[in-house]
């Protein structure tokens, strides 16, 4: 079971108009090789689910600048003025979701749950269109699962079965996104053989990963 394929093969699996989750947080490492090829292939009409709009010229920021994105579902776009400009000009639809709710909605989909009650957003516009429930005297909003066709994720060390280890803060949304997408592609900084990652050090179990591309295979 070797899940390693070329970045070119992998990017062909990402279709125009699909809903795609992209791991990463602000300017931290993202699957840049895959994003690079998506831009080159001129992929269109994506619905992107990500923590934020990144920074211009990096990660999701490039997809936005290249007009690959029709809709962005994120918690924050403040570090990317181009995203704000497109949003204000009506060129990019943006749905803003509290960060914890975003992470939990994605996990919810990946974990086979149908929804959850969160206190986040009570008394704010986040309430709009949502059911409220009271549990033990406290108000909660019902939030629903959020899934995707594809997830692309950046891994620091990945074995050929798909087990992933993340360095530092590069983990962020990776586990929940890998759980919640039909097709999951990990872009690996380093690919190793099964057994080289200790079973206790694996952060995303291989079952959640479909394909692996090497970060250095750019253009292969």
């Amino acid at each position, binding site marked *: *079971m070797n899940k390693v394929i070329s970045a070119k093969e992998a990017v062909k699996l990402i279709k125009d108009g699909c809903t795609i989750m992209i791991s990463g947080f602000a300017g931290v490492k993202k699957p840049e090789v895959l994003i690079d090829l998506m831009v080159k292939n001129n992929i269109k009409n994506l619905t992107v689910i990500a923590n934020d709009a990144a920074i211009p010229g990096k990660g999701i920021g490039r997809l936005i600048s290249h007009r690959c994105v029709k809709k962005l579902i994120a918690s924050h776009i403040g570090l990317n003025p181009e995203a704000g400009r497109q949003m204000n000009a009506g060129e990019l639809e943006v749905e803003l979701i509290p960060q914890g709710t975003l992470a939990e909605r994605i996990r919810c989909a990946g974990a*086979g*749950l149908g929804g959850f009650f969160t206190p986040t957003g009570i008394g704010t516009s986040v309430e709009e269109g949502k059911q409220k429930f009271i549990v033990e005297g406290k108000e909660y909003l019902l939030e629903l699962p959020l899934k995707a066709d594809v997830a692309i994720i950046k891994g620091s060390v990945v074995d050929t*079965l798909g087990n992933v280890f993340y360095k530092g803060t590069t983990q962020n949304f990776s586990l929940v996104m890998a*759980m919640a997408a039909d097709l999951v592609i990990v872009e690996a900084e380093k690919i190793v053989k*099964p057994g080289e990652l200790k079973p206790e050090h694996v952060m995303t*179990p291989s*079952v959640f990963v479909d394909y692996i591309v090497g970060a250095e295979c750019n253009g292969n």
Partner: protein
Amino acid sequence: MGIEAKEIIARRVARELKDGYVVNLGIGLPSLVANYIPEGMSVMLQSENGILGMGAICEAGEEDENVINAGNQFVYVQKGACFFDSATSFAMIRGGHIHLTVLGALQVDEQGNIASHIIPGSMAPGMGGAMDLLAGAKKVIVAMLHTAKGKPKILKRCTLPLTAKGKVDMIVTEKAVISVTPEGLVLDEIMPGSSLEDILQHTEADLIIRDELVK
């Protein structure tokens, strides 16, 4: 004879495995399926206490006291295994990431209902992870002896409290291989040593019999 029957069942279930499958095997008879994974086929066993890539039961003296399976046996792990916590394990199970689960049962019925966790008044060990496996696994095979003390276990309608409603896809016993379909139970195979008559005699449920099985 009991042991032989269980081996026959486990061998037949193993033929349902496919390359790349992630599989959770229940305690007891289902766990025997691990012994018959076809050579060269890549199948990963998941154990709900937190292993993906579980290996065989440990030889005496080789136990790692930190590594058990869900049945409290010391096990090896394969190269490329990983450990995780219970919340992640059941996210995996309930979230549809397990291709196949093989479970035992007390009763199964025409609607794919299964009763496996309680006999009111006499046995109530708890459902453990079975209800989550039944709710979440992509495919459910029940592996069990065809009868209990001579009484049919494949019924028109389960009489014991259900462990899940309409979740069974396939039943493998020492006598028969049966599919659960919207039309009812379909007899797909007669196991060696059994016969159509034998099966019909020991099955309470109505069976739709494949043409090729009726000569």
